[in-house]
């Protein structure tokens, strides 16, 4: 019997994953692109290579869609900046102030709510922000407010919900970066006469920027595409782009328009990727 040698895993192991990605990720994106050039004629969707859906985005009389895109970009940029500013000191404290043997425990504790249900977490903020909620009680008690203020259903609530989630994500990426910076660098800086702030500004901060970039990129991408948080916390006062997309699918079943809006969302994400691309690198340990 002739012995046939099967080709080793090394040579084909990546094939199933690539096939899956092509079939269930690339193909759907192409389907959506095609869909965005289609039209609804008598309730049926037909491919007519029309640009009407993109025209609708730009010229819709009430400016709903362009407005939604701007709202999305504003909320996402604010979210990303605030999250980085809030998370960086936290990651720094975890990496350098907590004793080594407690670090892992402290880190897991700090990001524990990261693992709670996304829908539930957004909704929990409604309890906190409600007129009888703990924040209003504190503000009344401390005399800052005379009458309670409902803080849900606002851009503030959306950003707060986002910052809560993404501060945890950024803490993880920045911490992972900080603990890789060799202690000897900081010691050398101190030996050469740098004070604590100078050592941080010229050594630690520049070396930790890749961790910030990865986290900030993920924050931007995930926040701008998220439907849940703005829908639950932001309410209906202002619409973000993902809410506009869901509205087209849900109530109107207008898949061509929803696809066109999604393509515009993809375009924004791609632009963000190009901005961050230089700093994003995947490394093997």
């Amino acid at each position: 019997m002739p012995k046939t040698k099967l080709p080793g895993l090394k040579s084909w192991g990546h094939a199933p994953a690539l096939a899956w990605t092509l079939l269930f990720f690339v193909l759907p994106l192409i389907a959506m692109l095609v869909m965005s050039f289609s039209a609804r004629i008598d309730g049926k969707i037909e491919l007519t290579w029309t640009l009407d859906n993109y025209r609708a985005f730009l010229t819709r009389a009430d400016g709903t869609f362009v407005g939604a895109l701007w709202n999305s970009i504003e909320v996402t940029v604010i979210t990303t900046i605030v999250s980085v500013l809030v998370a960086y000191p936290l990651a720094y404290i975890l990496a350098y102030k907590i004793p080594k043997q407690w670090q892992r425990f402290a880190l897991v504790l700090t990001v524990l709510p990261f693992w709670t249900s996304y829908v539930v977490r957004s909704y929990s903020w409604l309890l906190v922000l409600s007129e009888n909620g703990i924040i209003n009680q504190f503000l009344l008690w401390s005399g800052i407010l005379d009458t309670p203020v409902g803080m849900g259903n606002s851009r503030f609530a959306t950003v707060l919900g986002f910052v809560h989630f993404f501060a945890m994500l950024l803490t993880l990426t920045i911490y992972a970066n900080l603990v890789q910076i060799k202690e000897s660098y900081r010691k050398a800086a101190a030996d050469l006469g740098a004070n604590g702030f100078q050592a941080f500004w010229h050594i630690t901060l520049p070396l930790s920027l890749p961790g910030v970039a990865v986290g900030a990129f993920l924050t931007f991408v995930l926040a701008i595409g998220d439907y849940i948080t703005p829908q639950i916390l932001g309410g209906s006062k202002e619409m973000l782009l993902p809410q506009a997309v869901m509205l087209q699918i849900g109530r109107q079943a207008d898949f061509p328009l929803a696809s066109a809006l999604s393509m515009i969302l993809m375009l924004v994400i791609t632009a963000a990727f190009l901005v961050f691309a230089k700093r994003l690198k995947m490394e093997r340990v």
Partner: protein
Amino acid sequence: MKALGRIAPWAYLALMLLFIFLPVLVLIQFSFQGGLAPVPPFDGPSLKWWAKVLANRKITDGLTNSLLVGLGSALVATMLGFLAAYAMARQKRRLSAFYQFLLMAPITVSYLIIGMGLQITFNYLGISKSLWAIGIGHVVINLPLTFAILYAQLGEHQANIERAAYDLGARDWQVILLVTVPMLWPGLLAAFFIAATLSWDEFVIAFLLSRFDVTLPVVIWSMLKSGLSPELNATGTLVFVISILAVGVVEFLLWRSRRSNV
């Protein structure tokens, strides 16, 4: 001034922990609400909403469906991720960078777009909305993560041990099953549990690709639409407890494997 410098980090840490845990703690507290109002003031503690949750077929069915989809899709994602990571880490290819880009690409696209694309594609192909459809979508979003986690662990150190096994006469499959997989065990488990945790809690894709059998986040969403209730708080707390248990298992496994390796 010096004292301030010493206290400031701890004060900040305490403040951040308060911020991070505030919504979760309030949620847990109000799952024990006594009256009908899901919002403050608190008039419990009472277990009646917990009893209602555990007796609610919609919720328990959703829970079972979520666990099925989570565990199933995590298993597929971990296997595909491992195979890809192994092949990519052990053999250089002309297109390696491109393959890697392709495998990681879904991470940069929002769930909403992935879900809608699949909905359009499945509709076109005549695949009906089901738990299977949701599972397929969840493998797409988790594959980049399992791949990245496992790829990061297949470094030179592991390659040397594999080479030693080859030198001692082991075959391909023996090296993989008896050397590589046991070495990667903590990473494999971590990848599996992370994928399962993200999948069982995922909403948008599950919402777009389900009709009759729905997962727990979709059940929660429909409860939310019909108004807030303490039952919702109890359901949310239940989700939290299960997720935390999974994280606890991962942490314990990683901790044990670190101890035995040192």
